[in-house]
C-alpha cells in the first residue's frame, strides 16, 4: 500500500513538531510557524492539520497536565512517529530532486 501523501501545510506543521520535540502543542507550533514563515495560522487550522497528521500515523498525541493558565485544561502534546520521520525524509529527498538544477536556471551569471 502506498504511503499517505503530505500536503504543504501538513509538511510544514510536521517539521515544526519534529523541531519542537517533546514540547510540541498547538500554541508552540503556531509560534514556530509564525517566526519561520511570517504567517499567522489560525489555531483551528493548526489543530485540524495535526489531527489529520495523527490519522495518517505521522504524529501521536497525549494529554499533558491540566494548567491554570489554560483554565484548567491540558495541553495536547504531539510527537513525530517513525512513519512521520520516514515521511519527512521522503519529502526532503523529493524536494532535493525537484529543486536540482533550478539554481543555475534562475541565476545563470552566478555559474
Amino acid at each position, binding site marked *: 500500500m502506498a504511503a499517505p501523501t503530505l500536503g504543504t501545510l501538513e509538511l510544514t506543521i510536521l517539521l515544526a513538531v519534529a523541531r519542537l520535540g517533546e514540547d510540541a502543542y498547538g500554541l508552540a507550533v503556531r509560534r514556530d510557524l509564525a517566526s519561520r514563515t511570517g504567517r499567522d495560522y489560525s*489555531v*483551528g487550522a493548526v489543530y485540524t492539520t495535526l489531527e489529520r497528521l495523527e490519522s495518517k500515523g505521522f504524529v501521536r498525541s497525549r494529554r499533558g497536565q491540566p494548567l491554570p493558565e489554560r483554565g484548567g485544561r491540558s495541553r*495536547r502534546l504531539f510527537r513525530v512517529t517513525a512513519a512521520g520521520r520516514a515521511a519527512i525524509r521522503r519529502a526532503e529527498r523529493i524536494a532535493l530532486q525537484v529543486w536540482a538544477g533550478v539554481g543555475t536556471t534562475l541565476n545563470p551569471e552566478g555559474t
Partner: protein
Amino acid sequence: MSEGVPRRAERLLETLGADTEFRDAVIGDLAEEYEIRVRWDGAKVARRWYYGEAVRVTPWLLRDWLRGLRWKHIGHFANAALWASLVMFVVDFPVRAVLSLFVPQVMSGALPLFIIAPLMLLWTVMDGALAGYVAARIGRRAPIQSAALVALIWASLMIGSGWSSVPRWFLAVNVTLMLAGTITGGLLRTLRVVRGD
C-alpha cells in the same frame, strides 16, 4: 472557565459542539495566549485579539462538529427544532390572526402598510427570539446550531407559504428579522448560562 478570558466568547466557543479533545486544545491555547498577551499588550488589546481569534476558530470548530455529527445527534436537533417550532406556532398563531384582520384594509389601501408593518416586524423579531431561545434550551449540546436550524426551517416556510402575497421587500425584511431574532434568542439562552455561573 479561564480566569480573565472573555467568558462570553469562551462560552460561545464551548457550545459550538466540537469534539471535546479538539475543543479543549483550541480553547486552552487561546486562553494561554490571552494570558501572555495581557502581560505584553494590556487587557484591552488582548481582549480584542481574543474576539478576533474566536471568530477565526469558529469555522474550524463547526467543521469538527459537523464531522462528528451522527444520526442520534440529528434526532436531538430535530427534537429541539420541533418543540421550538411548536412553541413559535402556538404563540404566533393568535397574534397573526389578529394582525391578519387588518390585511384586507391594507390590501385595499384603506390602511397604510407603514402603520401595521412595524407591529408585524416587531412581532417577527420577538417570536423568532422566543423560538431561538427554546431551541437553544432543548438542543443544549449545540444550542446555536439548534437555533439556526429553527431559523432556516421557518425562513423556508415563510418564503414558501402564503407570505408570497405580501410585497417582496416586506417578505425579505420579515425573513431577515426572523433569522436575526432566532439567532439572538439562541445567543441569549447560551450567554444566560454564563451569567448564571
